[in-house]
């Protein structure tokens, strides 16, 4: 069971004052939350690295959280930024087994649906989402993806490029 938004917001506010114990609890909760958040949207063996990367950003950008605002939308913005950055870097993954979805297991499904990675994907044109899904998330080559989705290889590349650009521009979009 992952802590709810109000609890995490309280822990974060305490962490900003230097409370080590609150921060330890918060990091543990964020770690669990992020692992679910990234599931299905990144190959399994890369999740731990991406979670650490995101926690590092959380740590460096601790001041950017305003205690008067909800916590999870802030964490989701950091996580989305890190995810898009990761997709840009990854050219090929060698593992394609994906886990269950984030929103289905989340204790706050309404919030989860609004801030999820699936939500971002839903704003992309289907051809761009498909190209990114196949190449950047499932790890197919351009040729394999082209064969799987029926787009030409150059179109797959163009769709990935345009799709990632769009994702980068909608990190805070609900």
């Amino acid at each position, binding site marked *: 069971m992952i802590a709810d938004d109000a609890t995490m917001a309280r822990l974060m506010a305490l*962490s*900003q*004052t*230097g409370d*080590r114990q609150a*921060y*330890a609890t918060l*990091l*543990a909760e964020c*770690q669990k939350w992020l692992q679910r958040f990234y599931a299905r949207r990144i190959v399994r063996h890369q999740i*731990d*690295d991406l979670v*650490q*990367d995101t*926690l*590092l*950003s959380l*740590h*460096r*950008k*601790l*001041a*950017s*959280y*305003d*205690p*008067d*605002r*909800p916590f999870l*939308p*802030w964490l*989701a*913005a*950091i996580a*989305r*930024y890190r995810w898009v*950055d990761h997709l840009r870097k990854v050219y090929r993954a060698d593992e394609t087994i994906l886990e269950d979805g984030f929103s289905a297991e989340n204790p706050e499904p309404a919030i989860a649906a*609004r*801030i999820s990675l699936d939500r971002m994907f839903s704003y992309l044109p289907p051809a761009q989402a498909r190209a990114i899904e196949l190449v950047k998330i499932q790890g197919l080559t351009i040729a394999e993806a082209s064969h799987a989705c029926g787009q030409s290889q150059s179109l797959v590349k163009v769709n990935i490029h345009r799709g990632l650009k769009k994702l*980068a*521009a909608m*990190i*805070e*979009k*609900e």
Partner: protein
Amino acid sequence: MIFMHPDPHQFIDDLLDDLRPTRPLTLQRGLVIASGSAAAAIAVMALFIGIRPALIAGSLDPLFLLASGLFLMLGIAASFTVIGMSRPQVGNTHIGWIWAVAMAALLPLTAVVLGFANQGDAYFHSQPVQGMNCLINGSMLGLIVGGALTIWLRRGAPTSPEQAGLLTGIAAGSLGIFAYSLHCPYDGIYHIGLWHSMTVVVSAIAGRVVVPALIRW
């Protein structure tokens, strides 16, 4: 400096060891910094360049008021957006500044339209020598605002560093030329529409190019 670690427990311990009390980047603090830096730009202008006598005497040109007001509002809108962008959150929207840009763009647009209507002598009427002074001094004064907002952004977490840089430049240019317009003795539409607006454009380009490289995640 903390790095990613193969052992997650060690990684968490490193983060805990590095924890320091930090002041949140609240909206109020951001607005104080933005308005403080704009006030500093005006103070520098008043001290080293001087407010134009006509303004001190209370002689106000309608176009001066209108144009200065537009640049001030554009600077406020852009600063407000930069502050918002430093505090990311899914659900945030950063589009209000576009309307302020559209309104301020009426100044150069008017100058261009009138210039064409008057057989293209807008440049001659724009006081180009003084115009260069406005461009240079307005941009220099804008550095005070731009510097303050950049330092703020570096502490924040803008998810679109490029847009944050562009808006930092727009805020710096708008508030810089607003400060300098309190000195500039020319109130003609050609002068304001071309040279004062160009200060914002040049600052926006500079912000877009320079600021993203200074933001670290």
